[in-house]
């Protein structure tokens, strides 16, 4: 018998159905993957299980007994634990406090918080993910996305009103490194073997195939496929998700890079960066890789006009480095930041407002805004990226995670930039949309745009980049040609196990 069984789940937003008659059975001891395109309704389903969002109609049974899905407290009592896609941590609180947020904290004499025990138990929960580099007493606001995700994962493991029976994870690996992901999979395995049910959302098919024993695919608000993973295949999953055949892979280069140099660094150092030395030509894609936080963000931010060079020379688009992001955008340098919610989006503002923001000067006349032109431009990029939305004046907060990412990308590619700086551009984006984005980037390169692509998705870097810059502790360790490399040899270079062959 299923631990939790959901029948006839219906939910619509403002008349637009998101889930129409979804069924789902979760069994104890089983990892169940939930897949579907961006906007298919995965996170909505999860928010309904958590009692954060109220379904229009649903029949839920826990151990065969009827269960009301009304409030977060009820979900907690039923033993459900969640790691939501967009839930943020409280920046002002410590790591340990965040881990225990919403759970009873260890106390002394029944009143005062027992800080020692709190920190110890938080450290313990983190240690299960192999995490030792996060101090439980540190302010959570100072941590990057990856570490924040680890905090939320740890939080899932600590107490709760009743013993945990179901763990629900919404795209946890989107922000994690390979090593962290591997450890997460081990923990998930342990939890399942301990008798818990797991509901796991991811766009990464390999992950799902390796981890889950069952998979359910949502499309157009309905269950398009539900089967044991052993009885399905990568192609079948893609077909179920998209309803069409998708040729996976990376589109071929459309043109060779042109001779004109867009960006030239000569032994540049700044902050923790040093020894940067490369030419980037128009139409060329430079991949930037390294271990977690090896200076990828710093390099892109430097090119965006943040931070002053301490030594060496730099030339960007025929001039010195821009002195501010405002100047950078004016000079045709566009940027997709790493953390879309914190650094990318004005979540309460409309799709149009978010998309056209850096282009307002060009879209206005003598400072006078032209709403129709703005909407037309926003619509154009939305359609090119197959954004799933109801209307352009809806706040981006109401878009699904992957669709929010597309808005950030659409903003940077609305006009062809001279230099495009990308950090994790396809984070949380589905298989089909990924192909659209790769094609769009190829198109930009063919038009002469130089691209710097920092990504932890090594196949993505290998498929798109002409050359790859490897950073180690802020230092340029090597720059290699992408041709002939495979993910494992690139990984070896990142770890520094192997001497690189210099790029031609």
């Amino acid at each position, binding site marked *: 018998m299923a631990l939790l069984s959901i029948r006839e789940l219906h939910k619509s*937003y403002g008349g637009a159905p998101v889930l129409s008659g979804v069924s789902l059975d979760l069994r104890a001891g089983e990892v169940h993957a939930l897949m579907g395109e961006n906007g298919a309704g995965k996170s909505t389903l999860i928010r309904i299980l958590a009692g*954060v*969002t*109220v379904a229009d109609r649903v029949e839920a049974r826990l151990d065969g007994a009827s269960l009301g899905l009304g409030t977060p407290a009820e979900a907690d009592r039923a033993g459900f634990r969640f790691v939501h896609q967009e839930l943020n941590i409280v920046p002002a609180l410590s790591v340990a406090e965040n881990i225990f947020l919403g759970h009873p904290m260890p106390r002394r004499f029944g009143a005062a918080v027992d800080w020692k025990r709190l920190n110890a138990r938080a450290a313990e929960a983190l240690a299960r993910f192999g995490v030792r580099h996060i101090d439980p007493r540190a302010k959570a606001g100072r941590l990057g996305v990856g570490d924040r995700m680890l905090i939320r994962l740890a939080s899932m493991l600590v107490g709760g009103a009743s013993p945990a029976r179901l763990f629900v994870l919404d795209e946890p690996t989107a922000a994690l490194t390979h090593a962290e992901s591997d450890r997460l999979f081990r923990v998930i395995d342990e939890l399942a073997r301990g008798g818990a049910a797991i509901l796991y959302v991811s766009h990464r098919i390999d992950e799902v195939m390796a981890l889950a024993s069952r998979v359910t695919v949502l499309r157009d608000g309905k269950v398009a496929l539900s089967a044991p993973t052993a009885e399905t295949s990568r192609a079948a999953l893609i077909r179920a998700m998209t309803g069409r055949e998708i040729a996976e892979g990376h589109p071929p280069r459309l043109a060779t890079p042109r001779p004109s140099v867009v960006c030239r660094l000569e032994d540049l150092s700044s902050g923790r960066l040093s020894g940067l030395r490369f030419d980037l030509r128009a139409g060329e894609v430079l991949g930037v890789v390294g271990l977690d936080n090896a200076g990828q963000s710093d390099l892109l931010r430097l090119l*965006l006009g943040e931070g002053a060079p301490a030594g060496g020379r730099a030339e960007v688009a025929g001039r010195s480095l821009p002195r*501010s*992001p*405002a100047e*950078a*955008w*004016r000079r045709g340098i566009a*940027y997709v*930041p790493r953390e879309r919610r*914190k*650094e*990318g*989006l*004005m*979540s*309460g*503002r409309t799709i149009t*407002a978010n998309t056209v*923001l*850096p282009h*307002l*000067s060009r*879209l*206005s006349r003598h*400072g*006078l*805004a032209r709403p129709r032109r703005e909407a037309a431009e926003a619509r154009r990029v939305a359609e090119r990226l197959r954004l799933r939305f109801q209307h352009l004046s809806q*706040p981006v907060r109401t878009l699904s995670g992957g669709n929010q990412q597309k808005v950030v990308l659409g*903003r940077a590619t609305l006009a062809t930039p001279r230099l495009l700086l990308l950090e994790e551009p396809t984070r949380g984006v589905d298989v089909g949309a990924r192909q659209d984005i790769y094609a769009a980037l190829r198109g930009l390169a063919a038009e002469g745009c130089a691209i710097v692509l920092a990504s932890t998705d090594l196949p993505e870097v290998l498929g798109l980049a002409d050359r790859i810059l490897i950073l180690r502790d802020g230092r340029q360790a090597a720059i290699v040609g992408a041709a002939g490399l495979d993910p494992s040899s690139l990984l070896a270079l990142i770890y520094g196990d192997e001497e690189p062959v210099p790029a031609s």
Partner: protein
Amino acid sequence: MTLLRRYATLIGFAAILLFFAISLPDTFLTSQNLINISQQVSMLAVVAFAMTVVMAMGDFDLSVGSMASLSGVVAATLFVAGWSVPAGIAAALAVGLLGGLFNGLLVAGLGILPFVATLGTLTMFSGIAFTISDGRTIFGRDIPEGFGTFARDALELGSLRIPSLTLVALAVLAVVWFVLEHTSYGRRLYAIGGNMEAARLAGVNVRRLRASAFAITGLGAAGAGLMVASRVASANPTQGAGLMLDAIAAVFLGMTMSEEAEPRVLATLVGVLILAVLDNGLTQLAVDSYVREILVGGIILAAVASARIGLGRG
């Protein structure tokens, strides 16, 4: 639910109007009384419209009240020194612009929280006003004829007399509405309010915009101060003091009408009118002024609370 959330404030406004129309059948809904209300509220309206500019960026300006007092005192002092009316007005407005710019530099340049920075300048501006005026009220023959009569002038439209202060408020409303809703500048201010870091990384010159928006608010506050001084044909260093809290309250009331709680200047206008109508009606009903304050505070809380009901679930 959403509808209730969005329109609760408007419905409340309608209910207040209805209440006064019934309890004051002969005096409330007359054109004369409505025109009076518009004049009484014109100064608060100007401050609230100006406040909307900084609040669009998610900032505050607590110094608007003391800036209003300061500008009145500056103008009156210059009149005493023999300056002409236009020169005195221009100088007072310049003080507003510079004072606002000073706020902006503290906030945007030095990164001081707006609450703290403008709390500091609130005290400073007020101190300067006291120093300039010696703590006295400047009035009588020291105030030029033309300055005092401006507030009593009106535009005759058939049998209607639209007071000049009302016209000034309407003009300020038109300008602020135009800037916030129809220019790239306004769009960038709202982007800063939406997420300052994201706006900066998307090429918005956050520092310059924040500084300039505070300057605009300072200018508006100075303008309101001149309106107050003209209306009472005198200036003293405390006469603008009451404006700040009411202006912020009006913007908040307006924000309850927006789904995303964004300050919009037309919504601010509704907020201003609610405060004005309450004040006028309760005065006519001879309700004690302390009771009035309790009621106004309660209504603001009720509006904000009703706007929050159901938020975040859906």
